[in-house]
């Protein structure tokens, strides 16, 4: 069994934005159920001892927590490389200075579109885009490296050239162009978000060109959408293999979307250690390695390359979390993706909100 390399700490589900592709579960955790500062500090210490090197402080909006500075300091004290994944709309220079003093290493700032009106419609928050631009400036003035994270889909891909310009103009050294992944809220909004093949191909060409044009100045990471694929993504680098995630309420998850799989039970950090959850919990062991795999994954030469794809996607599309990810052309359910693409084209979103 490998030790995990990184921990995703989902500190809260609270967020001023309402993105229709939010990666949080449909059933959001309320503030009263969130882990305390001390509980997070324990998680970080245990994560470092287990072998984690990086922690991603995420949410919801992590800076919605009043103790975000203490939490960052605890992660830093545990020896973890600390990354803040933020929408940026709550960030000011004073908070930034405190975070730097607490040991923050890097900021990933999300942007919903390059066009302010589009960004505000997609994120569901008025004035958000200008605040994000200000946040980028604050991060750079504090001397921290900045990654811009642009989630792309049918309704903003036309602005990809401008998103790349935005990354350069805002001083990002790294840009993540991440096509939406379809779980939870994004699956609810799939008809409005799925890109066409032409959009995808144009985006891929643009990214390839921009990588050459901005070589040595801007690193571009590119996450492609499964729905046009013939091989599945190696989700999480294999279930229970490299990453783990802790939810706002303390559940220890093999990936942040794992709670979308009905019937799975997860250990809680309030009842157990992180090591015990990683090594011994049923949830982590169920899809670890290759023994659980059905045909056509079992014996496939790609079994240890793509790990059968994504368990959450297999469950979402087939109702069976142990099925081959339908993104694989060898899956008996691969036709579901083409059908979904055929139905796409809706204009309106169902926004993320507390139920």
């Amino acid at each position: 069994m490998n030790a995990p390399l990184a921990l995703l700490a989902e500190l809260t589900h609270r967020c001023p934005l309402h993105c229709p592709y939010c990666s949080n579960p449909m059933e959001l955790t309320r503030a009263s159920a969130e882990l305390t500062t001390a509980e997070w500090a324990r998680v970080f210490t245990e994560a470092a001892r287990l072998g984690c090197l990086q922690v991603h402080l995420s949410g919801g909006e992590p800076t919605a927590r009043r103790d975000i500075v203490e939490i960052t300091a605890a992660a830093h004290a545990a020896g973890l490389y600390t990354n803040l994944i933020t929408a940026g709309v709550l960030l000011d220079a004073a908070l930034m200075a405190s975070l730097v003093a607490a040991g923050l290493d890097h900021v990933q700032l999300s942007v919903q579109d390059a066009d302010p009106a589009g960004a505000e419609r997609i994120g569901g928050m008025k004035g958000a885009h200008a605040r994000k631009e200000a946040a980028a400036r604050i991060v750079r003035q504090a001397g921290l490296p900045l990654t811009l994270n642009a989630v792309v889909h049918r309704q903003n891909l036309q602005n990809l050239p401008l998103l790349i310009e935005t990354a350069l103009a805002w001083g990002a050294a790294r840009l993540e162009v991440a096509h939406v992944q379809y779980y939870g809220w994004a699956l609810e909004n799939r008809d409005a978000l799925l890109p066409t093949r032409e959009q995808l191909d144009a985006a891929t060409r643009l990214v390839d060109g921009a990588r050459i044009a901005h070589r040595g100045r801007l690193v571009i990471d590119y996450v492609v959408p499964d729905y046009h694929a013939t091989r599945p993504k190696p989700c999480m680098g294999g279930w229970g293999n490299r990453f783990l995630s802790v939810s706002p309420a303390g559940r220890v998850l093999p990936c942040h979307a794992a709670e979308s799989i009905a019937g799975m039970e997860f250990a809680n950090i309030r009842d157990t250690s992180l090591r015990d959850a990683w090594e011994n919990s049923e949830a982590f062991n169920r899809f670890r390695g290759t023994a659980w795999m059905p045909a056509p994954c079992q014996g496939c030469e790609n079994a240890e390359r793509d790990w059968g794809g994504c368990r959450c996607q297999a469950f979402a599309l087939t109702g069976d979390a142990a099925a081959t990810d339908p993104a694989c052309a060898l899956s008996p359910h691969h036709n579901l993706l083409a059908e979904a693409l055929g139905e796409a084209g809706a204009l309106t979103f169902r926004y993320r909100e507390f139920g």
Partner: protein
Amino acid sequence: MTIRFAPGVRLHHDIARERWVVMAPERMFVPDETALEVLRLVDGARDAEAIIDLLAAKFAAPRAVIATDVQAMLDDLVVKGALRA
């Protein structure tokens, strides 16, 4: 020109796995032995020439050979965003 780590990038001792890793924003990679020798000499003050001199002396190798390898490695790490020249 001096060589330095890009903001947010540093060498980190991975105690659990007894190895050195290059920690970078949302990424990490494990340098091979040669890359590690080079990265250990990146202190924000030395330039490529100084790094090449030190390695040529350390390994008693022809400077031209070392220079070609080191320059290629530095260029690659700049493209990856790990170093700034």
